């Protein structure tokens, strides 16, 4: 991990050694898969926790400020430190990485869910009540679908942020951090090929997942598109 300060750019090697990639396809695939798993689990659990907190904050308004403050503090801890500070408790494990990643999604997801549901027009909620919807049915059938565009935009930020943070978990060990394995391997050995591959694939993964969520939103909320076309 400790890098000698005097070594400069890796000038005397090609940008990419293609044979290395061919020889390490299994490793690269495993790193990519781990990156995806870490991201999905973090965003998934983060989303579930945020949903619970958002429901509590909407039901009991006094709880909004404290929840917002606690998740805000978690979000403000430098990512580098969060992965490390947990190691005395949970060790150099995937669990450590996962807890840190989840704690980064909470602030973004909590706020976007609350903002989305708060933004549902009151007359719509009133008409649902007048039509005899029970509170839980109203939440699931009316408020949640109408809040989807805002919630999904929060999901996009959370996902993209998580994809960018996963590589830093590579600090925790050689087999941690998804594509970060390749980046740290490259940094430690001053070897461009894995370094470049890890960084480029991370960016590509972030963009791909972002576009996927945009597509998901178009499919799930067709009315927003029709509205935009009419306007």
């Amino acid at each position, binding site marked *: *991990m*400790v*890098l*000698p*300060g005097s*070594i*400069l*750019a*890796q000038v005397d090697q090609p*940008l990419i050694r293609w044979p290395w990639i061919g020889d390490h396809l299994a490793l690269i695939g495993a790193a990519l898969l781990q990156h995806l798993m870490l991201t999905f689990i973090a965003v998934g659990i983060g989303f579930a926790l945020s949903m619970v907190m958002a429901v509590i904050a909407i039901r009991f308004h006094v709880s909004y400020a404290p929840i917002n403050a606690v998740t805000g503090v978690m979000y*403000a*801890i*430098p*990512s*580098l*430190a969060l992965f*490390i*500070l947990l*190691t*005395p408790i949970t060790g150099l494990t995937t669990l450590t990485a996962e807890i840190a990643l989840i704690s980064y999604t909470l602030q973004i997801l909590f706020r976007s869910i609350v903002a989305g549901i708060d933004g549902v027009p009151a007359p719509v909620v009133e008409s649902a009540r007048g039509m005899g919807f029970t509170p839980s049915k109203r939440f699931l059938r009316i408020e949640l679908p109408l809040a989807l565009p805002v919630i999904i935009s929060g999901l996009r*930020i959370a996902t*993209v*942020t998580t*994809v*960018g*943070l996963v*590589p*830093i978990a590579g*600090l925790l060990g050689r087999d941690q951090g998804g594509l*970060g394995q390749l*980046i740290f391997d*490259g*940094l430690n050995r001053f070897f*461009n090929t894995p*370094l*470049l591959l*890890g*960084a*480029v694939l*991370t*960016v590509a993964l*972030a*963009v791909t997942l*972002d576009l996927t969520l945009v597509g998901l939103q178009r499919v799930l909320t067709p009315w927003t598109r029709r509205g935009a076309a009419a306007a």
Partner: protein
Amino acid sequence: MSFLHDLFVWFNDPLNWQGENGIVHRLIEHLVLVGSAMAISLVIAVPLGVLLGRSRRKGSIAVNVANIGRAIPSFAVIALGVIWLGIGFRPALIAMVLLAVPPIFTLTFTAIREVDSATIDSARGMGMTEATLLRRVQLPIARPLMLNGIRLSSAAVIATATLAALVGWGGLGRFIIDGFSTRDFVEVFAGVVLVAALVLISEATFALLARLTVSPGLTDRGPSRRERRLRRSGVEGAAAA
């Protein structure tokens, strides 16, 4: 409690303040990186935001820039930078600039764009030149939002600049990384405390700056004490003046 005690002992040890590994030196390194990144970002993002905000083009540019900006993983950028620039200050600087530009640009763009067109029309009607209009009307009205963008960037850069320690630049991230390699978690936590303190100082500075520079006419602080006193004594004209 013993952990807090250890932390106190760490900060109280003069050896932790001196020399190349000391707090003072690491703090200066951190501030050099944050300061250079913020200066470059301001030079790039503010004029661009003002220019595009004033032109009557579609507003989607800012949204797209903000989205692209969010999608850039800082650590991946630093890693890419190492390939071409070697380890040290420069790859970290590039990543920090890429991190800082989007919020400053988007909020400057939005702030200038959102200035009420009736206000601009009346300023033009009063005979203001474009330069005066920008200096006396658009920039003062846009200032609170612009400052908010710079504040957000500053906090993000201060926290993320710790990553520079992974590629051979110093800064406060050094305490986090070095503490981790020697399993000295007091040192790691001391690093976190220093970074958090720096973020809080930055937030307080921008809050103060906003209070001092934002025109009173734009705040909801209401009439000043002098105005209230004048109004109470019935001197309406003086208050209006």
